[in-house]
């Protein structure tokens, strides 16, 4: 069952002088089992949208259907916990949310609240550690001794340990060095490919969107302005410029070469293939 969002409106501080309409009628179908990127400028409503997916925010109008739940303005979530177990939400800079004395306790915090027994918690924790590239020697250490990238893995492990069907990630690679960012993205890709998790990724990094995602949803001024398969989307750099985001390097290169009269394969984003195509169009030099 795909995630269905219908006519979703959300107003912050309704009825006060600070009233702010963040979502102005969002309609969206997000396929399960895929990696979908949600992009858009700061303030376009991306974070407000994703906070509806696990019931953190209740729609002002409209509805969200996700993981067997129907959420609308009249929904009183009796079992919000069960929904949050199915839809894991990782906020930006989740490492700032670590608080327990040991990594084992931090990862086990969610399962404990879901009523797992200590044995179940331990089993789930040990299963999840290798997924995020940590081993059991970390369990008794304080999360505050770790590097930024490691802390973030612990925070993500704390969500994965609940074995969610849908994983919503708000800028999971921001602030990491390129190597750690790649490792982080590869982790999510393997969760998608091997465990079939549906992944929603809020990102500003167009290189990541191009390399890792299947679908793109563009948010603009509280609405969805575009939804497309990734490879189709990057054929239209003007769609990115509309929201003031710089296209990835390879898209800029293709665009400039086209302007210079080269015939560039539209479907390719590989530098080697582009180079081969260009080579066939230049004079042979001795």
């Amino acid at each position, binding site marked *: 069952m795909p995630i269905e969002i219908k006519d979703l409106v959300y107003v912050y501080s309704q009825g006060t002088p600070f009233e702010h309409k963040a979502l102005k009628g969002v309609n969206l179908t997000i396929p399960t089992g895929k990696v979908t990127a949600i992009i858009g400028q700061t303030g376009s409503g991306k974070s407000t949208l994703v906070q509806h997916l696990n019931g953190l925010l209740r729609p002002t109008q409209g509805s969200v259907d996700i993981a067997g739940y129907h959420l609308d303005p009249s929904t009183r979530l009796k079992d919000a916990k069960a929904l949050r177990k199915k839809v894991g939400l990782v906020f930006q800079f989740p490492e700032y949310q670590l608080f327990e004395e040991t990594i084992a306790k931090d990862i086990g915090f969610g399962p404990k609240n879901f009523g797992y027994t200590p044995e179940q918690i331990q089993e789930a924790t040990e299963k999840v550690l290798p997924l995020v590239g940590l081993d059991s020697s970390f369990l008794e250490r304080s999360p505050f001794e770790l590097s*930024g990238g490691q802390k973030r893995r612990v925070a993500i492990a704390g969500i994965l340990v609940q074995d969610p069907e849908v994983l919503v990630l708000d800028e999971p690679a921001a602030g990491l060095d390129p190597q750690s960012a790649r490792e982080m993205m590869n982790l999510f890709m393997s969760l998608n490919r091997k465990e079939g998790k549906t992944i929603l990724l809020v990102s500003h990094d167009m290189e990541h969107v191009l390399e890792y995602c299947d679908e793109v949803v563009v948010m603009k001024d509280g609405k969805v302005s575009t939804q497309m398969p990734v490879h189709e989307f990057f054929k239209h750099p003007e769609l990115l410029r509309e929201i003031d985001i710089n296209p990835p390097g390879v898209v800029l*290169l293709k665009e400039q070469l086209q302007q210079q009269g080269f015939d560039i394969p539209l479907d390719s984003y590989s530098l*080697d293939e582009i180079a081969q195509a260009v080579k066939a169009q*230049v004079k042979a030099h001795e």
Partner: protein
Amino acid sequence: MEAVHIENLEFSYDGETPVLKGITLNIPRGSYTAVVGHNGSGKSTLAKLIIGLLEPAAGKIEVLGWPLTEATASEIRDHVGIVFQNPDNQFIGSTVADDIAFGLENHCVPTEEMQPLIEENAAKVGMLDYLNAEPTNLSGGQKQRVAIAGILAMSPDIIIFDESTSMLDPQGKASVNAQIRKLNKEKNITILSITHDMDEAAQAEHVVVLEKGKVVAEGKPEEVFENEKMMKDLKLDLPFALKASKAFEKAGMAVRPVLSLDELVEEVCRLK
């Protein structure tokens, strides 16, 4: 005279695990130097040593010709500003104007002289219209530019940017990077930028590569990034234009390695 001169610098947080293992480095006045390397390579530690927030285990640091010691650290810090990574951790004032005034107040600048300084420096970073704005209403990029304005108000000779754009969205990143280049070109301020963004590093005059507490390479960006084997061994990214020019070279075209997309397109068109 060098802006920063570092000789055989060593440092350890716990007295056992060395973090910096004999760094020797010269940063010329008025230059724009980028320091790149993985997390844990010692980049931020180096920055903190240069402004005297940490004390070396061995070796020496000279800033603007003065040896950095406990006695001179405070005076040296009047000439060196630093912008950290997280915009929320360094916004102290309740408004933009207050935040810019913070350093001035600490330096006992008379109130009547403060206002023009606040306005002048807010204008330099494009934040003059936001003087009364509160931090919750500012984007990350705007907060970082306010931090820069606060430093500029102190008329520094050197500004260190410690991954100052890594938490920003693309617009924020672009606005802060443009600001950095402008300060270097127009005000002749020495810039030391610690960054993971290789496309930004490619814009610098000088690149230093740190790995496990040592300087493993330094020079002009084209020289450093040209060392393909080293960059690969260190698992560091190449600037995009260079990566692309290598692809054209590999395809058998006589394309020179270049650091900007415009140059690359020019190179390719030359063969048309």
